């Protein structure tokens, strides 16, 4: 056990601190949107100094550093501690860019990577469908080749940022006769292509965090495919693993828990500071214990990225399940400690923390479901983590009996 990073890394941390001191004033302010020049400028500053797209090669507009998990960690720690804007990290940056670098043609890398990481092209992800959620590989949006073009028909759902996006990366069925995992392809196309209709999907928070996207004879150039025909499932899976862990990080949970502590110190009920209420305090401490367990689990995962001989498969598999449930409960405590004030939402003048407690409470329920539901996570943990069998397929004979 050695939790020090070493002298080289201490020097690197000082570099990061110096950057933050010198440049912090240039970061975007609340209200600067996705399309703002302020965000684009900040993005360029971050990339230039290696604090965004750090390992993306220079040829494609990145910083071109060797992957170094400790340096990435230090950057996260310092930016987090000073609450500095991390730049734009939409799905194009976090999910598509690694895919293109791994599986894209040289032409695709040249065309897309640089504008994507610079927030000049904003992407949305077209994976889930009304009939293909947990069982994503059964998706039915189809693309047929007609001359030099794919013709796409079907529907996607849960498409975040579709209404802001310039382009979509999308899974479509191109080989209807192949087994379901082998009949999918990964296509890229502009969102202003004729035949695409976007309908906002208002959710329980009152916002439209997601959309439905409909395709009617959408024509896309044949070469806008990543990987080969039928390889789309492998392409998509290379990045989904990344998404699951990042939905609910222990660092974010710690920040929110500290937010609850601040709230409990600052707010009173009937003249008594909330922190003096032993019942609320016990709930706070109980959550703190759970957050600490996830923090040290996270350090173990970090360490395993450096020391490859450590087996942390199970420790990794449980992060999405536990992390999202934990966040939901932390937000719940934030609401509960405020009593009736906790009901406040939207433009209510009594609202605390810009109404984030109720909002996040609902949003994290969404994340418990999204990105592989808690129930799907439990299937994965029991099957791949504990070696328990899959649900047996119902035989044709049994189906016939049940049908009768």
């Amino acid at each position, binding site marked *: 056990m050695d939790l020090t990073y070493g002298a080289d890394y201490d020097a690197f941390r000082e570099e990061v601190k110096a950057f933050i001191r010198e440049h912090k004033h240039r970061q975007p302010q609340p209200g600067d949107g996705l399309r703002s020049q302020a965000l684009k400028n900040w993005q360029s500053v971050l990339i230039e100094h290696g604090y965004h797209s750090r390992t993306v090669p220079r040829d494609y507009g990145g910083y071109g550093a060797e992957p170094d998990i400790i340096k990435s960690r230090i950057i996260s720690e310092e930016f987090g501690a000073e609450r500095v804007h991390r730049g734009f990290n939409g799905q194009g940056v976090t999910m598509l860019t690694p895919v293109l670098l791994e599986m894209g043609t040289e032409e695709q890398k040249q065309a897309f990577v640089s504008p994507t990481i610079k927030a000049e092209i904003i992407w949305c992800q077209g994976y889930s469908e009304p009939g293909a959620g947990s069982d994503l590989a059964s998706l039915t949006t189809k693309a047929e080749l007609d001359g030099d073009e794919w013709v796409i028909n079907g529907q996607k759902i849960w498409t975040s940022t579709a209404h802001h996006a310039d382009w979509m990366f999308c899974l479509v069925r191109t080989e209807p006769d192949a087994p379901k995992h082998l009949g999918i392809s990964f296509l890229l196309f502009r969102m202003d292509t004729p035949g695409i209709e976007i309908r906002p999907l208002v959710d329980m928070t009152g916002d439209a965090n997601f959309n439905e996207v409909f395709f009617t004879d959408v024509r896309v150039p044949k070469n806008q495919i990543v990987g080969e025909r039928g390889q789309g499932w492998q392409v998509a899976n290379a990045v989904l693993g990344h998404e699951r862990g990042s939905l609910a990080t222990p660092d974010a949970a710690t920040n929110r828990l500290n937010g609850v502590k601040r709230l409990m110190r600052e707010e009173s009920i009937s003249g008594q500071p909330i922190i003096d209420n032993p019942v609320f305090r*016990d709930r706070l401490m*109980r959550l703190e214990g759970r957050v600490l367990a996830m923090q040290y*689990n996270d350090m173990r995962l970090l360490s395993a990225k*450096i020391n490859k001989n450590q087996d942390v498969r199970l420790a990794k598999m*449980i992060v999405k399940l536990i992390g999202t449930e934990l966040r939901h409960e932390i937000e719940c405590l934030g609401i509960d400690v405020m009593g009736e004030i906790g009901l406040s939402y939207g433009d209510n003048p009594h609202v605390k923390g810009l109404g984030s407690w109720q909002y996040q409470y609902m949003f994290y329920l969404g994340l418990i479901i999204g990105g592989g539901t808690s129930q799907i996570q*439990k299937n994965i943990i029991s099957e791949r983590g504990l070696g328990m069998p899959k649900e*047996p397929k119902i035989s044709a004979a049994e189906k016939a009996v049940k049908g009768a």
Partner: protein
Amino acid sequence: MEFGLSQDQLLLDDSVRKFLSAEVPLDAVRSLAAGEGSDASVWRGLADMGLAGVLIPEAHGGAEMGMLDAVVIAEALGYAACPGPFLSTAVMASFLLKEAGATDPLASMATGEYRVGIAFSDVIGARKGQVTESDSKLSGQSLFAFDAEADAYLVALADGQVLMIEASEVTRASLTTIDKTRSVCELTFDASPACLVTEDMALVKQTILRGRAVQAADTLGAAQYMLDQAVAYSLERKQFNRVVGSFQAVKHMCAEMASQLEPCRAFTWYAGHAFDEGADDAGLTACHAKAHLAEVGQFVAKTSTEVHGGMGFTDLLGLHYWFKRIGFNRQLLGSPEVVRHEAAVLQGLCD
């Protein structure tokens, strides 16, 4: 940077587990719990491997390892539901005597010959102010001293004084608890001669905190055993022409146990390591680890029993020894609410 066990610690873990699976199989747990025989030979065997002297300096015949090593050992002991005075003699008493400079007994403790029990109930809140001292003579009672076979006891008074007293000077009544793999007793003193070890309340608290970190690891081991047994049983037991482990309801119970338990491994490692490094958050982490493992352990103990169906409720599988061990750890040295209150005090959230 490396967050994990060293090669030496992995070897230690491996050798302890090998020893325990050979020397403390279920039959041994069963007969010891029934009061047949004693744990003396097991403790001597563990002492031969250096476990009794884990925290004792080499100069006094110990192995001079650290709290992380103690955590590794405790997890293995919990997994085997192994009896013996590891928590009392090897962790709490060794630490306190060493820090207080009362090093005379350490050498015979390291060999496993001399056992020093812990009688701290007055500072843990069970019965405040029951033991009094006058002219180095103790009077009154101490409850829940562990273990019942000790050769001497460290008795803590409410004001932070700790005195050592030979077992021959006290009246000792064994107390039946749910966990028969550990022995607990009530000590009665009647102007019994004892020897002052320390008057430092901070040292008493540090000793309790170390005990809590080690208990957390013991619970982790016991809960891991119950999870492993649940998965194994679910893959053998058939109903409706299928192993019950193929039903999603059962799989999800196992997944929930694993999901809550797995992060506890890193948590208890850090709890041990924090003491070795003298980290500022060592005490806070120990309290949180103890309370968190108490809750996770309780969940696993219940859920694993349910996965075993009716057999889990019977004596036949012996699963209940681990259920009870987890329950014992939950109460001893502070129940979760008490320990969480201390966690709040330690970070200045309340008095």
